[in-house]
């Protein structure tokens, strides 16, 4: 293998890694936003709000992500809705992961001490204000670690976008391995690449959120 071919292989790999990181970040945004919205609807006292959230969660959590991507990409055009591969990648993965996220939101809201709800009622908060100012801020802190894990799962799920024509990191590693025959080396790089994105991107982001949101929960040590 000549040097030119090798550099092509590496630039394809680098591009694949960038694609994976970009899809991960964009889909994470969708997952977090939709997860919060659907999770809040899920705990609404109103049936008309709660039920659509239950259906959403059951559907997207209960069916395969790959099949969902196929639906967005191959089936929706039959009904006249054509979405670009990137749109499907970002929203398809984001929506699917948000259904797990919504359950995290629900569990964290349920876990907020009953005394917090009672104090809010005693102070005459409306339900909306109570959720916004008292309950959700506490729930968010409590659910951050679980979101960290979920977003790492999301990262791993992004390899499926290969099946809707996007060459991301896994597929570029596979092509490189096929082209060179050096499976050991390139799949080792693939493992390392995912690890680096998870540990270098997602974990610090969640840590950062935690440290910025944890005031009042961690005893601030005297200087």
């Amino acid at each position, binding site marked *: 293998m000549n040097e030119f071919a090798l550099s092509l292989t590496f630039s394809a790999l680098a591009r694949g890694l960038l694609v994976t990181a970009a899809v991960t970040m964009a889909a994470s945004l969708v997952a977090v936003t939709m997860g919060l919205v659907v999770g809040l609807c899920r705990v609404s006292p109103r049936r008309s709000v709660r039920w659509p959230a239950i259906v959403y969660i059951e559907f997207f959590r209960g069916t395969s992500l790959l099949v969902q991507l196929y639906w967005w990409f191959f089936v929706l055009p039959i009904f006249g809705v054509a979405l670009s591969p990137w749109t499907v990648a970002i929203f398809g993965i984001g929506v699917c992961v948000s259904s797990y996220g919504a359950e995290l939101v629900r569990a964290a809201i349920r876990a907020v001490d009953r*005394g917090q709800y009672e*104090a809010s009622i005693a102070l005459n*908060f409306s339900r909306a*204000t109570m959720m916004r100012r008292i309950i959700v801020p506490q729930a968010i802190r409590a659910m951050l670690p679980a979101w960290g894990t979920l977003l790492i799962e999301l990262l791993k799920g992004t390899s499926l976008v290969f099946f809707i024509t996007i060459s991301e990191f896994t597929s570029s590693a596979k092509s490189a391995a096929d082209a060179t025959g050096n499976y050991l080396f390139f799949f080792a790089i693939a493992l390392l690449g995912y690890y680096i994105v998870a540990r270098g991107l997602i974990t610090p982001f969640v840590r950062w959120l935690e440290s910025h949101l944890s005031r009042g929960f961690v005893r601030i040590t005297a200087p």
Partner: protein
Amino acid sequence: MIEHNVRLGKMMTRSKVLDHLIRDKDNVSIAMTQPMVRFENVTKRYGALTVLDGLNLDIARNEKVSIIGPSGSGKTTVLRMLMTLEQINGGVIWVDGEPLTHMNKHGQLVPASERHLRRVRAKIGMVFQHFNLFPHLTALQNCIEAPVSVLGLSRQEAEARGAELLDMVGLGDKKNHYPIQLSGGQKQRVAIARALAMRPKVMLFDEVTSALDPELVGEVLNVIRTLGTEHDLTMLMVTHQMAFAKEFSDRVCFFHGGKIAEQGTPDQLFGDPQNERTKQFLSAVLEAR
């Protein structure tokens, strides 16, 4: 001694007020003399368990009433119903002449809507055994959150009022501390300031010193004592601090099995209890000390 006489004097006019009310039970427009809080034949059940059975209790404006009684007798439930944390299964609770649990519709009392509850509930504040401070907010923020978002006060106004109240409970220098940085006694005093920031007419205290180390009880009781003497507040407290109940209250109610077994002035109830249950309870409590 003089103080006691004054108290007894107050008590006598009050019980006349109550007599008058009992006679005029159906006339709810007795503006001046109506009780601040009235439990009218209130029943509370949890499943098959009847916790309160046809409770009747009137509390006059500015009256300080202590509730004592054995565990499980329904003391907490009384306060929680009045704070609308529990729904009642029968009867009506009145606050300041208005039905709390119900509202008037075409001359009939129907269960209250959320809106009605929020309007009448604004007159009541509560302090809890386990403080229930908001952990993500500082002491001052705990005191201004509701005045700003519920009463619509400006931030400056709310902060001024909050700071004043924290000063009053002796925590002027802890404004910017988070609850986790405060002792139990300090937390409870913040909780009192937070409740007062909403300008309630009735304050409810449910065993507010039970979760505190013994040496911290005094500072909280002192705050309550000051509140009682310097402010126009109707106070209803569940307590195991018999000495404080005796010194502070205008009236003590002894609960047993979901009913008021006996009530009277502290001197009557502690000095000369009539009911067998009261005697047993008091001697058990005193022995335990």
